[in-house]
């Protein structure tokens, strides 16, 4: 398991498009957010979906995004946010 990402860490969701059962929504790929918290360690759903054990468990993070960073011309308010649960292997720290 890699080092834990601490709350507040700026991250970018990987802009990757592998085939298979992936729980990272397309609309978040390539987007920047921040770690809100660690949700826990869970078997990798990309493995589980094909009858494999999904081990070792992967860290799952609650990642918060500013809506204005997700959608050009977002019609809501600047304080609006979105939180999604993203596995560690889909997150890169932003220097």
């Amino acid at each position, binding site marked *: 398991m890699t080092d834990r990402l601490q709350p507040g860490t700026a991250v970018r969701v990987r802009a990757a498009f592998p085939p298979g059962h992936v729980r990272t*929504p397309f609309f978040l790929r390539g987007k920047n957010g921040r770690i809100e918290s660690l949700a826990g360690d869970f078997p990798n759903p990309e493995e589980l979906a094909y009858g494999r054990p999904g081990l070792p468990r992967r860290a*799952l993070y609650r990642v918060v995004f500013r*809506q204005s960073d*997700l959608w050009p011309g977002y*019609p809501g*308010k600047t304080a609006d946010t*979105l939180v999604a649960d993203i596995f560690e292997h889909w997150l890169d720290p932003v220097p």
Partner: protein
Amino acid sequence: MSHPHDDIEDSGYDDYQLMAEAIGEILIDKGLFRAAELRRTVEAIDAITPALGARVVARAWIDAGFRERMLADVNAAARELGIDAGPIPIRALANTPGVHNMIVCTLCSCYPRLLIGLPPDWYKSRAYRSRAVADPRAVLAEFGTVLPDDVAIRVHDSTADLRYLVLPMRPPRTDGMDEAALAALVTRDSMVGVAVIDR
């Protein structure tokens, strides 16, 4: 909203319905469970109503210690009330005067089923799943929920291994009400976050 005839006309099975039917038949043929057990399980799932979640919310409104435990672990807090919220971890999202939470599952239809029952058709629709994340204020307005500009909206996409339950704010002028009366105020949609409780 749903079309009334869909539910009373057999319009054939789609591929996924056929697969579900076939897997059920195979598992029954193999003796893993019996048809009556499958029926009872479906019946039990269908019987869950938002009243369970409402009891948890009402207790959190009247008991600050319970509220803290609920915010730490909804499943454990529900267990205190004799409610089995299942093995999937559920997190409470507490609304405040400055932040309104709402839930969606953009990938499928993840929903805190063991506390508030099966999701409504609109929750599973592509329209809700795509628009709740891109323009939540417009979606809320269509549900009759217009929030002040200084209330931030936080949308929670249930993408993976957690489920979410919105903890609505206790409505004003409810000081004298007992727990059961408070629970009766708590609606399904307020726990999904597409509504607020205005008595």
